[in-house]
């Protein structure tokens, strides 16, 4: 087990990267604590897998250093780093039995047969593979195959960290949920460092203690699921986490009032103060959950036109137009449903301000 640190790591797949856009990973300094469980969340192509491969050593970064417990391992290949990695699609040694597949990483490290047997049986037990142990791996179904791949990652007890690269893509939803819980249990029992790459926010939020959100080769925010929901530090986090994502309105600031096409919205004083030094494109951001909506005129309520209503069972989502901008708002099940016109309120403590996509604070 180890604490993994990135010191100004950047990576480009080009031989002579020149401009910033040539980099798949733009200068990242980050620290993964020993025994933590992390989810690496971001859209496809944002550099998650590259980052994971830099941790495991499959990719050597163009710049910067990777440290395990303070020791520089940047130049070491994966087999010398003592790390486990599970890939998106099952990787099997198809001529071997399931047992031999699970034992392979241990045998390659010359571990005693007795210990190998103990570990293999344990992992097989956890993953429900005991009854297949003597079968040839090639003949199994896709989810069993992926469980074997997972098993090869979990079988070594002394690894610095286990890295998962969207490991549950090929598994059907119910089993996915079971396996995710299993991984969480394993993490709680063994206190292994786990880093889990996914583009599915549900998966990230349920699996990990801390979620690292990546966007265009950068880490834009690291935090608990609650942090990411309450205080998105980047426009992208607001948009990516939550369904539907945060509402954004372009605005112009005057004192502690933000004007959206002439309509004034009051901000908290500390936000307005911080904004005095901010530069760039200003945007208001508010979660649909915090946008208060009423079917009758209310004090300080802004009049908006109701465009659409979506019933999602325990709540509804109302789409309204305010000054030609579309806004989404949550409507609890028992609230009166506005029709035609609605009055909305931006609670100042929940209304955020973003300058060039970054939170003003």
């Amino acid at each position, binding site marked *: 087990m180890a604490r993994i640190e990135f010191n100004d790591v950047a990576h480009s797949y080009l031989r002579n990267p020149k401009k910033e856009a040539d980099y798949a990973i733009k200068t990242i300094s980050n620290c993964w604590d020993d025994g933590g469980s992390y989810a690496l969340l971001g859209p496809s192509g944002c550099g998650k897998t590259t980052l994971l*491969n830099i941790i*495991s*050593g*499959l990719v050597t970064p163009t710049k910067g250093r990777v440290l395990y417990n303070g020791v520089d391992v940047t130049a070491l*290949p*994966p*087999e010398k780093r003592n*790390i*486990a*990695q599970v*890939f*998106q*699609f099952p*990787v099997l*040694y*198809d*001529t*071997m*039995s399931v047992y031999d597949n699970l034992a*392979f*990483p241990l045998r*390659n*490290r010359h571990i005693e047969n007795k210990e190998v047997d103990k570990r293999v049986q344990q992992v097989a037990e956890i993953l429900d593979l005991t009854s297949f142990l*003597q*079968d*040839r*791996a*090639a*003949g*199994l179904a896709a989810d069993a195959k992926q469980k074997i*791949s997972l098993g*090869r990652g979990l079988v070594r007890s002394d690894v610095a960290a286990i890295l998962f690269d969207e490991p549950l893509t090929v598994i059907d939803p119910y089993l996915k949920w079971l396996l995710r819980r299993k991984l969480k249990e394993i993490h709680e029992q063994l206190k292994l460092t786990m880093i889990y790459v996914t583009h599915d926010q549900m998966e990230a939020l349920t699996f990990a203690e801390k979620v690292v959100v990546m966007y265009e080769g950068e880490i834009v925010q690291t935090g608990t699921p609650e942090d990411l929901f309450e205080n998105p530090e980047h426009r992208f986090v607001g948009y990516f986490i939550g369904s539907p994502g945060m509402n954004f309105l372009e605005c112009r600031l005057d004192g502690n009032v933000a004007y959206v096409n002439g309509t004034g919205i009051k901000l908290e004083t500390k936000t307005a103060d911080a904004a005095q030094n901010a530069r760039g494109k200003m945007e208001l951001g508010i979660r649909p959950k915090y946008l208060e909506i009423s079917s009758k005129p209310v004090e300080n309520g802004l009049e908006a036109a109701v465009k659409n209503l979506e019933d999602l069972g325990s709540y509804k989502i109302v789409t309204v137009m305010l000054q030609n901008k579309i806004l989404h708002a949550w409507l609890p099940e028992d609230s009166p449903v506005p029709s035609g016109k609605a009055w909305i309120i931006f609670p100042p403590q929940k209304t955020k301000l973003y300058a060039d996509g970054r939170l003003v604070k």
Partner: protein
Amino acid sequence: MNKWENNRAWLLTVPVLILVAFSSIIPLMTVINYSVQDIMGEGQSLFVGTEMFKAVLREPRLHEALWRQFLFSALVLLIEMPLGVLLALAMPKKGWGVSFSLVVIALPLLIPWNTIGSIWIIFVRPDIGLFGHFINNVLGIPFDHTARPLDAWITLMFMEVWHWTPLVALLAYAGLRAIPEVYYQAAKIDGSSPWKTFWYIQLPKMRGVLTIALLLRFMDSFLIYAEPFVLTGGGPGNATTFLSIYLVKLALGQFDLGTAGAFSLIYFLIVEVLCFVFYQVLQNVGKGAKT
């Protein structure tokens, strides 16, 4: 789309039927026809039933040719398969070297078969051949493929390996390139040695192409004719008289069409059965059967 019945559609298969009839069915029928008759001359033939088959199976020269043929094919496979895989492993994986090595390796495959024989006749001649002159006069080792059976075999094997290993190498290379990178990544993470990576990943993943290579090489080497015919003519003595050379001697040299027909059918059957066996064995190696 609606389907409708129109039996005239069968007419579309006629071109293929004609083609297959002329290329396979009619010749095969002719051979079967010959094999059950003793043909003395034009218009003079006698139905003899299975007599020709019995005679052929009792013929000691045929037995010798058959064993010679098996030995030849076995040596060819034992040398060319591993060598082809080794070559494929050694070939570059990216950059200009890929196309360069592909072209260089494919060169022997582009040469007409009887030209290959001629090239090697000159190459091993003791007086003017590069190899023949070098080994006889510089190294002082007597070497003559026209007089000594072993030398004839060595020459033939060298020629065969030089000519056909590229095919195995190209197929193996295609198989190697098709293995997804993630397998190598997983092997690195699992701490696999290069030998284990070869044995547990590369070789099993090449099974398909290597099966094809094995079948092609077996069939071609078992039916070999042009190269030994040009190089040694079956000699010295009968040392390199393989089945096909013997068959041609029977059919055209002695005009023994009945015997030759029976022999052809037996020859055909041996190739067919062995290919089937090879194919089944190689397919089953990879099955998910319980071990």
